[in-house]
C-alpha cells in the first residue's frame, strides 16, 4: 500500500513540476528580456552588445522578405527570429528625441509580428499576413530613423483582397514577397528611400 501511495505522489509531483515549468518558460522569456536590458546599464560587456542599430533590424527584415519571395517559410521564421535578436541589441541612446519617440511606438509591434512569423514556420500564408503589418512598421521606422542603404518602397495591388500591401526592398527590380513565385514580378516601386547614413 505504501508503495502505491508513494508512486501516486511521485506521479503528481512530476506532473506538477513539469506543468509549472511550462508556465515559467513562457513568462521567463519576457522576464529575461527585462533583466538583460536592466543589466545593460551596469555591465560593460553587455553594453557593448547593445551597439546595434536600426540597420541591423532592416537587414533582418530584408532576409525575411527574400525568404518569403522564395516561398521558404522555414527561412522566413529564422530571419524573423533574427529581427528580434537585432531589435534587442539596438542602441537607443544613439537616437534623437523624435526618432526615439517613433521607435518606442513601433518596436513592440515589430517584436510581436516577428514573433508570430518565427512561430509559424509551417504556415507561410499566416507569415505573410504579419509581414504586411511588419512592413508598414518598417517603412515608418526607416522614414523616421533613416537607412544606411537605399531602399525601395514597393506596392503589391492584389494582396489583402485587392486593397494592396507595401514592402521594402533593397533592389529596384520587383520581386513580390506576398505571392512568391506565383506572381514574382507583380507590383511597382512607389518610392525610393535614399541612403542617409
Amino acid at each position: 500500500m505504501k508503495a502505491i501511495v508513494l508512486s501516486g505522489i511521485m506521479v503528481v509531483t512530476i506532473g506538477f513540476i513539469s506543468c509549472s515549468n511550462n508556465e515559467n518558460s513562457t513568462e521567463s522569456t519576457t522576464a529575461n528580456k527585462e533583466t538583460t536590458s536592466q543589466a545593460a546599464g551596469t555591465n560593460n560587456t553587455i553594453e557593448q552588445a547593445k551597439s546595434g542599430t536600426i540597420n541591423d533590424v532592416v537587414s533582418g527584415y530584408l532576409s525575411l522578405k527574400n525568404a518569403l519571395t522564395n516561398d521558404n517559410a522555414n527561412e522566413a521564421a529564422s530571419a524573423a527570429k533574427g529581427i528580434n535578436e537585432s531589435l534587442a541589441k539596438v542602441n537607443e541612446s544613439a537616437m534623437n528625441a523624435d526618432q526615439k519617440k517613433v521607435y518606442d511606438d513601433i518596436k513592440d509591434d515589430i517584436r510581436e509580428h516577428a514573433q508570430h512569423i518565427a512561430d509559424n514556420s509551417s504556415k507561410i500564408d499566416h507569415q505573410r499576413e504579419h509581414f504586411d503589418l511588419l512592413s508598414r512598421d518598417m517603412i515608418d521606422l526607416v522614414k523616421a530613423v533613416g537607412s544606411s542603404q537605399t531602399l525601395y518602397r514597393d506596392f503589391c495591388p492584389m494582396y489583402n483582397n485587392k486593397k494592396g500591401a507595401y514592402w521594402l526592398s533593397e533592389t529596384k527590380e520587383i520581386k513580390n514577397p506576398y505571392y512568391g513565385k506565383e506572381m514574382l514580378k507583380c507590383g511597382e516601386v512607389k518610392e525610393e528611400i535614399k541612403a542617409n547614413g
Partner: protein
Amino acid sequence: MRLPRKILSGLLIAFVLIQFIQPVRNLSNEIPSGDITKAINVPDKVEEVLKTACYDCHSNNTYYPWYSGIQPFGWLLAKHIRDGKAELNFDEFGAYSLRRRISKMNGIKNSMEDETMPLRSYTFLHSNARLSTNEKALIIDWATRTEDSLRLLN
C-alpha cells in the same frame, strides 16, 4: 494480476491528488478601464458575438464550464486563457497604442477568414461559440472597417 491492480490504484490516487492543484481563476470584479466598447465603436450585435465566442479567453472574465474543475482539463484551460489574453485582451484594448489597435483589428479579421479562431478545441465543447456565416461576416466587416478608420488617424 497483482501488478496491474497496483498501477491502476496508483493512477487513481494520482488523479485524486491532482484535483487539489487548482489553477487561479480568471475572474475580475473590477469594471475594466480599457474596455474595447469605450475605446472604439462596437455595434451591439458585434459585442454580443465577441462576448459569447471570444471573451472566455480574451477578457478578464471567463465563464467556467463544469469540466474546468476537473484536472488536468482546468490546467489546459488556464493555459489557453493565459495565451489568449497575452495575444488580445478586449478589457485592455483601450490601453493599446494606435498601432497595436490596428494590428489587432487586422488579426481579428485574418483569424476569422483563416478560421483559426475560435479554436476548434473550444467550439467542440462550446456549441454557442460556433459562429454562423453571418456572424463571421459581421465580425470581418466590423474589424475591416475599424482597421481602415484607425489607419486614417495614424
